[in-house]
């Protein structure tokens, strides 16, 4: 049994704002999204932060707010928006049957505690004993709960009541693709009727700079457009995205319609020898291309900005467009930063807005030929790519309902 997979709700929060409408507005004017780049807080690394959320709107209990760090706040907020749009928010019986699938990293560390302990370790006569003593005294007991990746889902379940099942995927960009694929495959095959799938990343963290900078992956100068950066090309961006996926029967029984259809979703992992990512993506393209209608297709790329792999993807996408009467591309990390685990889901959510608008937003990088202005008739199909900075290649096709 292969069923259609409908998207009936979405939540999207990034440096560009909250929700599809806000994103569309911010993307109309380069000065607006450019102003959301923060080149100071984590200098020399530019980041794309999420502006302070009004937590009371998303998480009513103060105790719940305190139990999480920003990463989990973002995830709970975006999933709340998605459930709202899908008309599921507060529907306890339906939520108890909704499957939850999350992609995310670990939560924030207490950087101040880390730095204090490191400073003391140097002078300590017995370093092991010192470390144990300081950790026992200085770590907040509840900090662990804000750090475990599976507690992103745990908090979504607690705040929103989604309890059908709960799965958390880890592993950088692949995690987001895997999470979406797990929900998509289960619904298509009849193993699930409704799923809430979410991805989240917080860029405003020095521990993330320390993870990605040492191997030379972070953009460490003034911000630049996405497509022609050096290897040190990633500008991280905070993002949370959530989708409600449903079988048509399940949605119709609730009186809901699709805001978009998810027609295909593929995930792969090449070994990243030269040309291997392209080969993997070409195989995915062969499946997706049979569905495409010339002149009605746009593409959101998850290119991370790290030079070599972004250049490989750029050349491939140019070839796809060339063979298909032109497929205008937007490298969204240029506008909201590279959101790692949340990157693929963020682009899926934004693709829905593009389908609703019937066109692509203006080019983010006017000097890159891939990013041609949208000139066609109505946009009805959106491709989304997700290539990890290190591993993983994903491709999805969304269609207007």
């Amino acid at each position: 049994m292969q069923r259609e997979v409908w998207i009936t709700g979405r939540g999207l929060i990034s440096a560009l704002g909250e929700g599809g409408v806000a994103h569309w507005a911010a993307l109309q004017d380069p000065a607006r999204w450019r102003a959301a780049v923060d080149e100071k807080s984590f200098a020399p690394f530019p980041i794309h932060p999420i502006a302070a959320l009004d937590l009371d709107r998303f998480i009513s209990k103060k105790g719940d707010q305190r139990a999480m760090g920003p990463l989990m706040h973002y995830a709970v907020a975006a999933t709340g928006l998605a459930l709202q749009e899908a008309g599921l928010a507060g529907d306890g019986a339906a939520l108890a049957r909704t499957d939850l699938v999350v992609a995310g990293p670990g939560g924030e560390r207490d950087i101040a505690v880390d730095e204090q302990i490191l400073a003391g370790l140097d002078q300590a006569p017995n370093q092991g004993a010192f470390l144990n003593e300081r950790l026992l005294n200085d770590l907040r007991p509840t900090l662990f709960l804000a750090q475990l990746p599976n507690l992103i889902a745990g908090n979504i379940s607690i705040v929103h009541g989604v309890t059908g099942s709960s799965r958390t995927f880890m592993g950088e960009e692949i995690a987001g693709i895997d999470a979406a694929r797990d929900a998509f495959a289960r619904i298509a095959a009849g193993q699930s009727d409704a799923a809430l799938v979410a991805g989240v990343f917080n860029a405003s963290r020095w521990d993330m700079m320390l993870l990605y900078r040492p191997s030379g992956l972070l953009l460490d100068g003034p911000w630049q457009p996405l497509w022609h950066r050096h290897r040190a090309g990633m500008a991280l961006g905070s993002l949370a995205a959530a989708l409600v996926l449903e079988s048509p029967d399940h949605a119709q029984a609730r009186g809901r319609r699709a805001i978009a259809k998810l027609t295909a979703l593929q995930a792969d992992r090449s070994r990243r020898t030269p040309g291997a990512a392209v080969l993997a993506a070409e195989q995915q393209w062969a499946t997706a291309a049979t569905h495409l209608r010339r002149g009605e297709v746009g593409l959101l790329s998850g290119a991370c900005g790290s030079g070599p792999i972004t250049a490989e993807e750029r050349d491939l996408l140019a070839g796809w467009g060339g063979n298909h009467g032109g497929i205008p591309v937007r490298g969204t990390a240029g506008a909201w930063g590279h959101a790692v685990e949340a990157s693929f889901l963020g682009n899926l959510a934004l693709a829905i807005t593009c389908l609703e608008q019937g066109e692509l937003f203006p080019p983010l990088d006017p000097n890159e030929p891939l990013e041609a202005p949208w000139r066609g008739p109505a946009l009805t199909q959106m491709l989304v790519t997700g290539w990890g900075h290190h591993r993983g290649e994903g491709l999805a096709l969304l269609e207007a309902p």
Partner: protein
Amino acid sequence: MARRDISRPVAITGIGILTSLGEGREENWRRLTAGHSGITRIRRFPIDHLRTSIAGTIDFLAIDGQDTPLLTLEAACRVVREALAQSGLGQPGDFPGPLFLAGPPIEHEWPQRRSFAERARSTAYPAMAAATQVSNDAHERFLNGFIADRIADEFGTLGAPATISTACASGATVIQLGVEAIRRGDAAAVLALGADASVQPEAIIRFSLLSALSTANLDPAQAAKPFSKNRDGFVMAEGAAAFVLEDEAAAKARGAEILGYVLGCGEAADNFHRTRSSPDGAPIIRCMRNALADAGLDPEAIDHVNAHGTGTPENDKMETMGLQAVFGERLASVPVSSNKSMIGHTLTAAGLIEAGFAMLTLRDQLLPPTINYREPDPAIPLDVVPNQARPARVRRILSNSFGFGGQNTCLVLGLDAA
């Protein structure tokens, strides 16, 4: 909830196990059924000031360095080799199916942070980020996708490898993911893998601060005492297990020996509290019932329960309440073992390791004991197979895994396809 779908039976054709009891399926089974404990004093790092200074470690692997991701990877590789050798499926470096990994979250640990600080001559994160340069190889090692990535490289699994964290339920979740992929027809074979070697100071302390660990440090082998009245927490432990899962028809077609079947999988999330389970036990009851429904079986079909049985006061009480609701009066005649009394709590790997032991229970018709059972808890009227293994007629086992943070997964495992 997954719809019941048993049209495509899922067979197990290879099992690999490594725990603090030793390396290898048979060695583990021999020691487990002899009632041995793998819990010892921690020797990997200084234990000064620790409230809990015992664990089930796999120090016998003796890899270079202290990085827990590398130790986890080594354990993972070994159990995969053992499972593949038993199944005879695929060629070296060429496994014909996807990988689902249950693994721990990975981040820089204190040895890395200290070396960054030394090189930067500063303990400030901005200075460390600016001054540190590492190779690609060193970068990969602290990505959450690291272990799955290396396993995919070494064993040539197909497609995007998935790394799952449903906390202590992860090992059971990856079996479920594999079963679903096979039932969908996405794959004829799946490598389900769980590996966790996370015993390092911060991890022990984080669990300590939540009062989750046993502090019975004086006699490590007697510290883990699930279902006993004097139980005082779980014992953190390391280990790994791998299953080769196959579409039964495909396994038969290649003449593989079928060790048993995954008959059903159930999930249910608990949204009561971050560290406490629902006081009415509803989520774990629903989880067990979902697994039974997925298998198309009534509770009467279950001969034995491989319990989550962590040995925390809360888990064992709630698990008992859940079992009472599911099995009713018949529970008195359904033996319930906790492997964790011997191997400790192997965290993300636990669901897979314990499912492995459940398969060996079926093979040898021998129930592993719950050791350290000396003070029965009147509130837990279970037949826990106290202290000594017991021969029994066993066709189907329910294996429970309840994750910290609310993720629960139960499996029904059987000797026969139905």
